[in-house]
């Protein structure tokens, strides 16, 4: 394995590789390659409308990736987003049941619900010190079961056109693009918001917490609060994603299945380190776009449907392996886990 080089002797700036070492560059590169291959298969892809429909389909994943980013960068996991999305869509369908007048109240309710789920995830993880992978795994089961029990196993009711506007509609008659999807606007806004948030004091505290929650706590960060907020943000993002997905394709029984892993994959593909403290929102967003672009690529190539997972798996592993660099994240990881002084132990981290 690698050697940890003495801190003092190391200058990252001099490292020619350090330019690439962040996942951001890798994922950007990968995205470019994938787009290039798509272009060869389907030159028309980069004309407005196809691109826009790509954006519309990618938007929910982008939102989920952003939400997942907050949680992962704080050193946790959120496996519950998939079934949360599913639950939200089903709930919306049942409550709206085709009645446009109920659209807004239900939208509000969805946001509240997402917020509550995030809050529960966060508090159970931080206050009860349950590893987040277990917490959110539990929430995943609970949501999955509860919603189906509530709807008797299969979704009932249907979404109103108004509700579906966000995911399906857009601003018409935009030059070149044709229709500018609301989904794209929402995703872009969310991205901008996330970037701003990560520059804010909260974002910095979040980053520090994911990096070394003991030091963060010693600096006055309310670790439990920062982490819980991250889960809440994830829950909210999932809710918005649910609005987009439900809007995009209406309600089906399987909606949301497996989205949690796709989202985590996207984030990690962006070079965000599981375990926290490293990686940028933009990288996560690029990761989401890459994953979606891969799916598109497979279809564009008429890749046999059965082989697609294999290729997906290979590319993900290769990309992450490529982005992972020697010495990266080793040193800090070790230090975090040192017994150090007993005073460190009281601050039991809830990580995984």
């Amino acid at each position, binding site marked *: 394995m690698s050697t940890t080089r003495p801190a003092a002797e190391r200058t990252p700036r001099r490292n020619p590789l350090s330019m690439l070492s962040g996942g951001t560059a890798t994922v950007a590169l990968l995205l470019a390659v994938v787009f290039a291959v798509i272009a060869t298969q389907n030159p028309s892809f980069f004309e407005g409308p196809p691109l826009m429909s790509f954006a519309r389909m990618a938007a929910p994943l982008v939102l989920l990736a952003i939400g997942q980013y907050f949680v992962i960068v704080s050193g946790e996991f959120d496996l519950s987003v998939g079934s949360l999305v599913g639950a939200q869509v089903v709930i919306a369908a049942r409550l709206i049941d085709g009645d446009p007048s109920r659209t807004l109240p239900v939208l509000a309710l969805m946001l509240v619900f997402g917020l509550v789920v995030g809050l529960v995830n966060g508090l159970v993880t931080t206050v009860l010190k*349950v590893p987040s992978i277990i917490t959110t795994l539990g929430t995943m089961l609970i949501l*999955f079961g509860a919603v189906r029990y509530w709807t008797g196993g299969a979704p009932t009711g249907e979404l109103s056109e108004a509700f579906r506007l966000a995911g399906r509609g857009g601003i018409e008659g935009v030059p070149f693009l044709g229709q500018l999807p609301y989904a794209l606007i929402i995703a872009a806004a969310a991205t901008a918001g996330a970037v701003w948030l990560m520059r804010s004091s909260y974002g910095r505290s979040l980053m520090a917490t994911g990096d070394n929650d003991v030091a963060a706590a010693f600096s006055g960060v309310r670790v439990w609060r920062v982490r819980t907020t991250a889960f809440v943000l994830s829950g909210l993002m999932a809710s918005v994603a649910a609005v987009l997905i439900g809007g995009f394709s209406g309600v089906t029984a399987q909606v949301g299945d497996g989205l949690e892993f796709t989202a985590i994959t996207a984030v990690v593909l962006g070079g965000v380190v*599981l375990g926290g403290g490293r990686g940028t929102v933009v990288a996560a967003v690029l990761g989401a776009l890459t994953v979606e672009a891969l799916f598109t690529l497979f279809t564009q190539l008429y890749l046999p449907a059965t082989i697609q997972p294999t290729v997906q798996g290979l590319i993900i592993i290769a990309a992450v392996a490529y982005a992972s660099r020697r010495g990266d994240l080793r040193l800090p990881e070790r230090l975090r886990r040192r017994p150090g002084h007993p005073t460190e132990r009281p601050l039991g981290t809830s990580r995984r």
Partner: protein
Amino acid sequence: MTRSPVSPSLLDPRSLPTRIGTTALVYAALVVILAVSAVLVSAQGANLFTPANTVDLLTRSSLLGFLAIGMTLVILCRSLDLSVGYVAALSTVVAATVMAGDPGRIALGVGAALGVCALIGLANGLVVTKLRVNPFIATLGMGLIIKGYLDTNFQGPAGDVPSAFQVFGYARIGLLPVSTVVMLVLAAVAIWALARTRLGHHMYAVGGDAEVARLSGVRVATPVVTAHVLCSVLAGVAGLLLAARFGTGNALVYGNGYELEAIAAVVLGGTYLLGGRGGVAGTIAGVLILATLDTVFNVLAVDPFVKDVLRGTIVIAAVALYARGQLSRAAVRVRFPSGGTPPPEDPPDPPGGPSPRDPEPAVGGAR
């Protein structure tokens, strides 16, 4: 920090419970759950411990057991394996197709299946250790790769398991299903190996702190890779069990979310997800807990969707319980319990003095 010589665990009354702590806690939890379940069931006028239910419980536990034992090893090494479900599925089809209904080819089939699984485990281990891919992603990706292979080549049931081998799936000794016996034996072997082999010790070491292990001359990659190989092989065994019960190979079992269930069992068993602490004994208890729940749900004919809700809640609750236990293990020696014995000149708590209140969780966890 405490004054040191208070330390040696054997002599410190407080650390005795905490040393065996978690595992004991897990078995306590198991007993409690069994008791509660028994009551609930009998309230329904049924009996939880009828031979039928007992066998059912044990059978359920053996499959998950195989997966969870392997998962424990991997997690002890501070890794993770999300591909076990797919490996098990692959194992069923490989075994069944190789055996092709011919009792003479049983050994061959078992060998082939486990061999393939071992190779996959090796790949997982190498990708994690050499390419430094986060195990979460590495094994997730491996799962996808296998899924693609299965979807392409084995759509649905394939092969035929000779009835001679189905014994593994159905035969019992008294109330004890053969598969459960095998599972418990493997568990015992694992426990022994962890305690009595270098590799076992090194697994704890690497999981505890890879750098320390390395500087102590441990070849860090070896335990991790071995753990992954063993984990996949055990997943293979689980696959064999499935094949024996199905009488054929079925690729679709990868859809049953075995990996997450196994992780849940391991964590329920009190093994630390960040590695270096825990063991197989606890895991078995975790497995039994989950199996008990399933059986009870079945006996009580709980709505399948309510099952999920209950499962989720109980897992979280149980782990939260251990977390509480974990905190006490960090307890420092109390020098002045309850205000201790303040010397005369020491003023007692002034009225209106600060009243002890729970500190903020972030920093207060330890008391």
